């Protein structure tokens, strides 16, 4: 489980996060939703330690991650996987080498065992016959899937995804969403996803946290969204006429 207690974050003089507290559960798809610029990515990057927080506590399992030293963090991070918005694959490495890099660094497996694990993960994300291709030679959807394969190669306990559907067509988005959901349930991973994709929220969200202007404005399940009277949440979720109709029908 991941616990975030009263965290605040500012860049120079501009405060971006205000006293956010939340809990993210294992075996569940936890989603952080909100408008662009609301602070979702900053919150996610603060949780994983890529941004230092101004105040508050972050607990990863039973370890206080926010107070961990540089070397302690490196050890904890080996239990985490992060899928970046832009995939962040290493452009100079092939698909296979990208996925194998964490294994090369931290496992004592033989080359054959590592290759087997890489192929298993690539298979798991439905990528075949692309081992020797470079990231520039594959599509955006495939890059995202390779990024997921790389994130799960070390069997992480925690999986973070920053807008995994951004820039993808609706069909590929659904494939990615289902993949994340399956992996989460299959390996009992604590998954935290940043998104503002409504399909994704409705399809795979188990627990949803709505961030508004850097504050934890609302949290609940996807079913509770339909009955919530939170004005900002309703304006965000039911911005389109289609979702307004869906809400009416649901109620």
């Amino acid at each position, binding site marked *: 489980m991941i616990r975030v207690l009263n965290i605040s974050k500012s860049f120079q003089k501009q405060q971006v996060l205000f006293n956010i507290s939340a809990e993210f559960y294992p075996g569940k798809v936890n989603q952080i939703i909100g408008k662009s610029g609301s602070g979702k990515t900053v919150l996610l990057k603060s949780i994983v330690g890529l941004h230092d927080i101004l105040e508050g506590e972050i607990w990863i399992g039973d370890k206080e991650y926010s107070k961990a030293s540089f070397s302690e963090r490196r050890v904890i*991070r080996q239990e985490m996987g992060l899928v*970046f918005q832009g995939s962040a694959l*290493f*452009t100079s490495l092939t698909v296979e080498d990208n996925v194998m890099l*964490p294994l090369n*660094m*931290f496992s004592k497996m033989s080359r054959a065992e590592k290759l087997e694990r890489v192929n298993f993960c690539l298979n798991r994300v439905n990528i075949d016959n692309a081992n020797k291709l470079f990231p520039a030679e594959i599509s955006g959807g495939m890059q995202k899937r390779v990024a997921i394969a790389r994130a799960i190669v*070390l069997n992480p306990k925690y999986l973070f995804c920053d807008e995994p559907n951004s820039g993808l067509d609706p069909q590929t988005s659904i494939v990615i969403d289902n993949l994340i959901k399956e992996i989460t349930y299959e390996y009992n991973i604590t998954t935290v996803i940043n998104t503002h994709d409504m399909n994704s929220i409705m399809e795979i969200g188990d627990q949803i946290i709505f961030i508004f202007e850097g504050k934890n404005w609302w949290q609940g399940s996807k079913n509770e969204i339909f009955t919530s009277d939170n004005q900002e949440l309703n304006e965000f979720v039911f911005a389109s006429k289609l979702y307004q109709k869906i809400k009416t029908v649901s109620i």
Partner: protein
Amino acid sequence: MKIIFHIGRYFSLMFRTLRKPERFRVYMKQVVSEIDSIGINSIGIVAIVSVFMGAVLTIQMAINFVNPLIPKYLISLGVRDTMLLEFTNTVVCLILAGRVGSNIASEIGTMRITEQIDALEMMGINSAGYLILPKIIAAIITFPFINLLSVILGIIGGYGFNYITRLVSMPDFIYGLHYYFIPFYVTYSLIKMVVFAIIITTVSAYHGYFTQSGALEVGRSSTRAVVYSIILILFFDLVLTQILLT
């Protein structure tokens, strides 16, 4: 105040760079790849510059040593020592700062803005060590060889040009090349080359590593890397010459 901030951040980055690598074998693979990128790929430009510098120096020495009291063999001695003491280390490193330095800064800068560095950190890899240390080691290994190659090619350039133009008789030219050779000059040149290798790789890596977001900023980092490397090379050239030769 800003300069103190940069110096502090530079040394903090270097401290992280020099931490014990997670896996030596992976780093060694990186070093080999960087030797190719930083060293081998620089040989072409260094060879061209060295040959022409040797030839130009021969002409300039010949033009200036017109006094009949000055022996002609001093022309090739001048070419040899000037190449050895200054041109093949300082001037070559100024060129390498442009070629290698901008390459390092833009490579690491691009990795920063495309979140590849964050991805390394998230895997638990010391990104500074993984990206910068192999470049430093590769430069320390290859730059002295480049230096020696440059000296040889510079002298060959001077010799070849003199062979064609006969500014000095060939026996005089060869005698001058051997005359009053001080072996310490080679050591001095190699020491300078190692120091400049560290300056070029670390300063460029520093500017690349702390690139702000945006493609425009990668270009700026690259320019800053070259400018600061050149300034530091010239400064340390002065310092090392004062320490080692006086």
